[in-house]
């Protein structure tokens, strides 16, 4: 049991940041992302021994993460947003550029359906192959391809993001 706990602790230590980034791109909020990662890990922990024996733990945790997030979305859960500090703090330095990128991307991601957003984040940000995304989302590879294509088409329609992408390309 100790070895299992040790393995779990090592996994959390090594992967929590990557998981949080994915969760952030899904939720658009760091506090929710932290909450989502904690929930996914807490759900994975009781089955950790089994998971490590027969599966890649990261794939499993990501699957739980995506499923949990989808459930939250389905329930339209908009609960409290825990925060260690008040959000009303002054920004440091010139943040105009950063804000433009963030607002553009956030707006674009927000315009997608939860399913499209999940496919896009897993496929593009986490760089997972289509087969693995399909496994994580409990759907066929064809569905992933179609959803991805719909998501990209929708992003192209977003003028703010299209502009940013063109700017990046230059």
């Amino acid at each position: 049991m100790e070895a299992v706990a040790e393995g779990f602790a090592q996994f959390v230590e090594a992967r929590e940041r990557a998981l949080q980034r994915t969760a952030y791109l899904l939720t658009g909020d760091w506090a929710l992302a932290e909450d989502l990662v904690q929930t996914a890990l807490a759900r994975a922990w009781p089955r950790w021994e089994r998971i490590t024996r027969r599966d890649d733990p990261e794939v499993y945790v990501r699957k739980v993460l995506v499923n949990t997030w989808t459930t939250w979305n389905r329930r339209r859960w908009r609960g409290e947003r825990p925060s260690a500090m008040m959000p009303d703090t002054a920004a440091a330095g010139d943040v105009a550029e950063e804000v433009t990128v963030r607002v553009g991307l956030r707006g674009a991601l927000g315009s997608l359906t939860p399913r499209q957003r999940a496919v896009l984040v897993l496929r593009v940000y986490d760089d997972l192959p289509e087969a693995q995304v399909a496994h994580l989302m409990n759907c066929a590879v064809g569905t992933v391809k179609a959803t991805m294509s719909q998501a990209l088409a929708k992003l192209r329609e977003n003028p703010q993001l299209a502009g940013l992408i063109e700017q990046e390309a230059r």
Partner: protein
Amino acid sequence: MERQLRDLMIAEAGDPPHRVTVEAVRRRAIRRRAAQAGAASLAVILAVGLGVAVSAGILRFGTSAARGAGEHAGPPRYYVTQYFDPKARKLVMAVRARASGRVTAVVGDPMPGPGSSCGQGTAGLAAADDQTFFMTCSVWRSAPAPSRRPGLPRQFRRPGKITSIQSRIYRFHVTSAGRITGYSLVKGSTLSGWADNIAASADGSEVAAEVIALPRSGRMATNQVPEGIFVINTGTGSRSLWHTGYVPGANQYVDAMDISFTGNGRDLVVLGPRCRRAGALVNCNGHADMQVRAYSPAEAGGSLQGGQVLLQDSALKPRGTSLSNAFISPDGSAVTAVLTDCPPHGACTLTVARIPVGAAQQPRVLYRVHSGTRFQGIFERLFSSDPSGRYLILDAGAGSGRVNGWIDHGRLVPLAPANGNIPEYEAW
């Protein structure tokens, strides 16, 4: 496009502000298990007849005296707060929804007119079960201002002597929709003097109020020692006094920082500084020992010099840690305290901890915040607990470093007003 999009996503995600630790995950897993077990056992109870258990008084949380400790599954939906409204340019006491911060009702002034404290805000607010609240209001009369210099504009004239002060305690209930009902004067709560601190037992059967008597001079000093703490039975209107007393040269009670009750008003628990004083005035000069003392039975009355010491800051570690706020849990097993530690150099730390009384158990830290360079005004605090002792409100600090929220598993969930309108009182 995908590559560019990925770069944008990497830039957007950046670095997480906090780390997810194994400890946090472990706590979450335990909570999930407890919730699942709770749901399962509840299903079993329902199957065997919940109605019978409840009517027989079998289902209780904690000790029998701790009624209300498990009455709500989550934090209260509403809280009562007093804050400065910049638009109205006055203090407002309002009911707010916890989740949205929306004002659902405004608490009226029961004694409108000049010389009434409630028009300018209450001096005491306390919560009992079922969203029942008690507030103090004082009304005073003054003699006409001396007319030795008749040419002086009115606002510069020295005010006349206060000839009488009377305080009253009012009760109201906040409905499940956040409205106010049952606004009434508490029986036996008309007190001679200024009531500046108040507490209510969980079931609302008793209230306690610290009262400062009007001195013969008619001028109240800011460091005047109160007459004592009145305990009032809200059902019968009978009351008893825990008096301050005076023992020349001794380290003694001077006033209450926090007052609370165990169970349904069984014991009165008071946090206050002990220091040397001169007659009716006090000047501790920073040498006070903060003590939590229990007085039992609460309705008996007596001297605040006695009682049982439950906790004192001279026993806290690290040395120099100050007991800044403290409330007893309904079952009397623990003190929930705000501890401030300000070393001579470096940042202050504010810790909210549950400290077991008279047991060898370790205190449990519920929330901690370090002052850093931005967290000023650590001593400007507002700390209150719901009647069950589970849900705590903390408001502390100054400027942009101010925190106002309720403590939820080591985090502070923000409460309105978030910034700018600094609350004077918050209770739920």
